[in-house]
């Protein structure tokens, strides 16, 4: 992998300043600051309903930033939504897959929409890497939970995002899947990519070199310990 290159490599990949978000009038994020540099992995911990997925949705540009500032690769996301989307990849709770298309077709659709030029052999190699070689031409609707997750994650092998956003990436993966994902993430980080992920699984993240953060009452605070989640 070779995360998209920009000129100023010293600036942070993503920078959030005082980001607030409310659903209706229910304030979920009350001023979040975050800086992520190249090669860094930030992990968000926090209780159920604390707003991790919401924060990732904001980072992914799915929700618009109403209060606060979000710069991605130096671009103000508020005015450069489309450029920002080109630079990031989000794999969330949902897999964004089409049941009636096969694995290959799903990946093809994805790469066409992103304007990537990938050949079919490349696609099949990616599927092989995530352990879906045998299911390459099967419609996705019959996939098991873990197989869907693997396919969703296979996208990161095709796109070369600057910033990777993951929401509970380990859920539904078996041991082998977890190992494979961690190896892939380490690789990606070494090549200068940046990751922000939400997780409830400190044991599995432990392998990665990362900076844990804790989200509570709408405030994000850095943690020192690598096993941060406290009830």
């Amino acid at each position, binding site marked *: 992998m070779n995360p998209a290159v920009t000129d100023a490599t010293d600036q942070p990949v993503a920078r959030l300043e005082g980001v607030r978000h409310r659903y209706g009038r229910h304030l979920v994020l009350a001023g979040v600051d975050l800086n992520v540099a190249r090669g860094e992995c930030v992990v968000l911990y926090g209780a159920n309903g604390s707003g991790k997925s919401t924060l990732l949705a904001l980072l*992914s*540009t*799915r*929700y*618009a930033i109403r209060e606060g500032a979000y710069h991605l690769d130096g671009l103000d996301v508020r005015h450069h939504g*489309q*450029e920002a*989307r*080109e630079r990031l990849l*989000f794999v*969330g*709770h*949902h*897999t*964004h*897959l*089409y*049941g*009636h*298309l096969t694995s290959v077709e799903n990946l093809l*659709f*994805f790469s*066409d*929409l*992103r*304007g990537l030029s990938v050949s079919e052999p490349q696609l099949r190699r990616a599927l092989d890497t995530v352990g879906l070689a045998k299911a390459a031409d099967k419609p996705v*609707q019959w996939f098991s939970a873990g197989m*869907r997750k693997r396919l969703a994650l296979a996208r990161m092998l095709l796109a070369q995002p600057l910033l990777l956003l993951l929401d509970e990436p380990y859920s539904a993966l078996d041991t082998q899947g977890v190992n494979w994902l961690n190896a892939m993430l380490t690789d990606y980080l070494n090549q200068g990519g940046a990751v922000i992920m939400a997780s409830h699984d400190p044991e599995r993240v432990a392998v990665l070199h990362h900076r844990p953060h804790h989200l509570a009452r709408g405030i994000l605070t850095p943690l020192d310990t690598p096993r941060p989640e406290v009830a």
Partner: protein
Amino acid sequence: MFKAIYRIAWKDVAGDLRRRATLSSMLFFAISVLVVFQAAFEPDRKEALRLLPGLLWATTLFTTLVGLGRVFQAEEEDGAFEGLLLASVPRGVIFFGKWLGNLLLTLLVEFLILPLTMVLFNVDAWAHIPAILAILALGTLGLTGLGTLLAAMTRGARSRETLLALLLLPLTAPLLISGVQAVAAILATDGQVAPWLKLLVIFDVVYLAMTPWAFGWLVEE
């Protein structure tokens, strides 16, 4: 960009055509609507000629309406629509992709039901087929444009089909009227087609100019 439009439309149309289900079921649906009208109104031959424009347009309208639910159905599963919105293409491209797929299927069905209607209702207007098709196509542009927008708007709404119909029907009243009148004018041979065509074009222009923009607003969160 055109590749993305094409891809989105392809996904919908190919997905549908692969099962060869949609096209033929839309077609058969249209036929059953005609049968319903026949059973409900039992027009005689002369009456049928008078009712023909209305039959065609009412069938088109209901077929489109029933087809609209499909447009975003595939996007419903597992956050697929969210995925589309996360792609780095302008929102307008997504809209046009969805619209194109829908337009193609609807046009195909219309082209197939027109001769069928004539056969079923015993109407002899074969010479006018090209002109009628052109009018149907003109109306369908705006109809599917507005329909696609409304389908996007009612994604995830409760009682979605009812709502969609409720919103679409009043807004397409001018289209329906001018379409019916234009076809009637053609059949009447001495009728005036031009003013109705003008209205159809106005309607198309207005909707196709407004809807991609409205779609962009709609999905911004």
